[in-house]
């Protein structure tokens, strides 16, 4: 798999078009790594000149900030900014809405000014510019619902790019009763991913999975590695894992193109 690093690029005197910010989930989580690879395959197919930071990448600090630890957040942020500024990074794409939100919104105040895109926005641009094509392939005619990640949707008002991509797959896109601005959280945000929920009568991901099951989809599409985990778990709890797949939009496209 062709995954150049910024360091290698620099050694060759090259400046990539875009930095692919992989994120911690995309680097370490077994499920999320598949999303990372799917996205890289698309980038390579579309001949996008990209690079990753590799071992120079570190957590954006998002979970620390949402947990209330501004110190750890700013230390992480400033370290990352120092590295990215040294590489003169201009444009960043990431498959994680949390990384996307933090780098886009909270890094500028700490000296990191970049054009930041969520991978669905980036893929939409590739499509619009004719650098890639999407066909339904094996997904043609399937019933797909999209779960809006909070940090992509409400937090940054990106609702259309993921939907536009899904529709290109010639599928039947069905909306849950709570979608877009009314989308229900998967339960992972605000550092909840890393702790047990407080006492209650239900887990949030189950509540959300029930929303999805109501529209009887064959596939639940997401655009966030954490939403993916939560929805996958929810589908398992509901014993629907043989009927319903939870897939990232990058995976849908890569699979459809048989990459």
């Amino acid at each position, binding site marked *: *798999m062709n*995954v150049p690093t910024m360091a290698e690029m620099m050694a060759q005197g090259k400046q990539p078009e875009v930095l692919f910010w*992989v994120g*911690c989930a*995309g*680097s*370490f989580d077994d499920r999320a790594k598949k999303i*990372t690879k799917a996205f890289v395959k698309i980038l390579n197919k579309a001949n996008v000149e990209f690079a*990753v930071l590799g*071992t120079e990448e*570190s*957590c954006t600090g998002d*979970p*620390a*900030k*949402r*947990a*209330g*630890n*501004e*110190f*750890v957040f*700013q*230390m*992480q942020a*400033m*370290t990352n900014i*120092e590295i990215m500024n040294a590489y003169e990074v201009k444009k960043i794409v990431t498959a994680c809405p949390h990384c996307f*939100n933090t780098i*886009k*919104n909270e890094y500028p*105040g*700490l000296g990191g000014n970049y054009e930041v895109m969520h991978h669905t926005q980036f893929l939409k641009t590739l499509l619009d510019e004719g650098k890639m094509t999407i066909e339904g392939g094996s997904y043609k005619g399937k019933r797909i619902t999209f779960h809006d990640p*909070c*940090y992509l949707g*409400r*937090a*940054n*008002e990106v609702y259309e790019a993921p939907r536009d991509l899904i529709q290109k797959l010639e599928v039947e896109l069905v909306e849950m009763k709570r979608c877009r*601005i009314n989308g*229900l*959280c998967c*339960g*992972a*945000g*605000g*550092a*909840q991913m*890393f*702790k*047990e*929920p*407080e*006492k*209650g009568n*239900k*887990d*949030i991901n189950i*509540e*959300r999975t029930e929303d999805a099951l109501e529209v009887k989809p064959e596939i639940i599409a997401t655009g966030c590695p954490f939403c993916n985990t939560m929805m996958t778990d929810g589908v398992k709890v509901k014993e629907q894992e043989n009927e319903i797949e939870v897939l990232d939009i990058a995976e849908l496209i890569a699979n459809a193109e048989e990459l």
Partner: protein
Amino acid sequence: MQYIPNILFAILLVVGIGYFTRNVKKLIRNIKLGKPLDRSDNSNLRWKNMINIALGQSKMVRRPIAGILHIIVYVGFIIINIEVLEIVVDGLFGTHRILSFLGGFYSFLIGSFEILALLVIVSVTIFWIRRNVVKLKRFWNKEMKGWPKEDGNLILYIETVLMVLFLTMNASDVHFQEMHAGNPISRFIADILPSNPDTLHIIERVTWWLHIAGILFFLNYLYFSKHLHILLAFPNTYYANLEPKGKFKNNETVKKEVEMMMDPSADPFAAPAEPTEEEGEPEKFGASDATDLSWVSLMNAYTCTECGRCTSVCPANQTGKELSPRAIMMKTRDRMEEIGKNIDKNGSFQDDGKQLLNDYITPEELWACTSCNACVEECPVNIDPLSIIMEMRQYLVMEQSAAPQELNLMMTNVENNGAPWQYNQMDRLNWKDED
């Protein structure tokens, strides 16, 4: 002797408006106890938001039934209050229906007020049924026990009484009824009133006085009620956050310290700079009491009308957790009221051994938040409960190291190995060669 009613009226007006003004000053003082936050930018967009969201009620109609009924009551109240102008002039100068020289236009005005008054009564009745008969869930959360529940109903009763008084006042006004114009509703009430002109005159006078006294009472009731939103919705939407909802503010004090730590030219052995007099006490990180919050958060708290839309969309609340964004706002307001009364009594705030944290808002509530922004998105007047939750989390973590154990572990991992899990940063690119 004939001026006694005029004098009584003037006294009523001065007392009513005077007491209200005094409480508004207190309100402004309390809000100003919050920390500074600059929201003076982008005034064009702010005006636009205020006109759309507060005046135009654009976010109310996201829930169509409540939204449309609310608009009727709102429009009714604003428009019918034009009539108050006439009442004030009549009251002060002893005139009767001073504006009736407008003729047909006057009839048109009063006639539309009457229709609106009836619509208000109908809407308010439906509101009452939704609260007390249908028992909509959001009006029965646990923070809605006691005063908040009574307050909600009391407002509906006062509004109904004011409308009935207005209509009865018109119905008992013999001269007005004889014009046979502008009385589309009151003519039916006139039919059931006694026909004796003296009795009618008494009814007319009594309802006239009760109507204006009721309005002044309601004005003064606002400060003690959730109903304050009819005024504060305007500044609240004007000063609301314009940035993307996912953008949380970066702490400037932390920024200075982290910059110093990362500066290669800084002398690690240098003695820390003596705090200058201007700096005073070292700044507290985050918020443990209401006055640690920004003035915008405090204004948010006073603006909240406890409709509970935020709580009804909160993922934590829907799954039975302690957290309710509405309760966060109500508790912040209640604590501010307590602080305000403390200042009224003692001249300046004297430590009462209480804080917003623990005494009002528990860590359990704060840790249940997923920061999903559903509450912020939902609020019809752009209140932001999330920023209060985040400020208080900062206090728990940075001042008290009181995060849940798993979060401490996560933060240690981020600090030590650059990921929330215990993986080595050097393994970050391993995925490339895995199958």
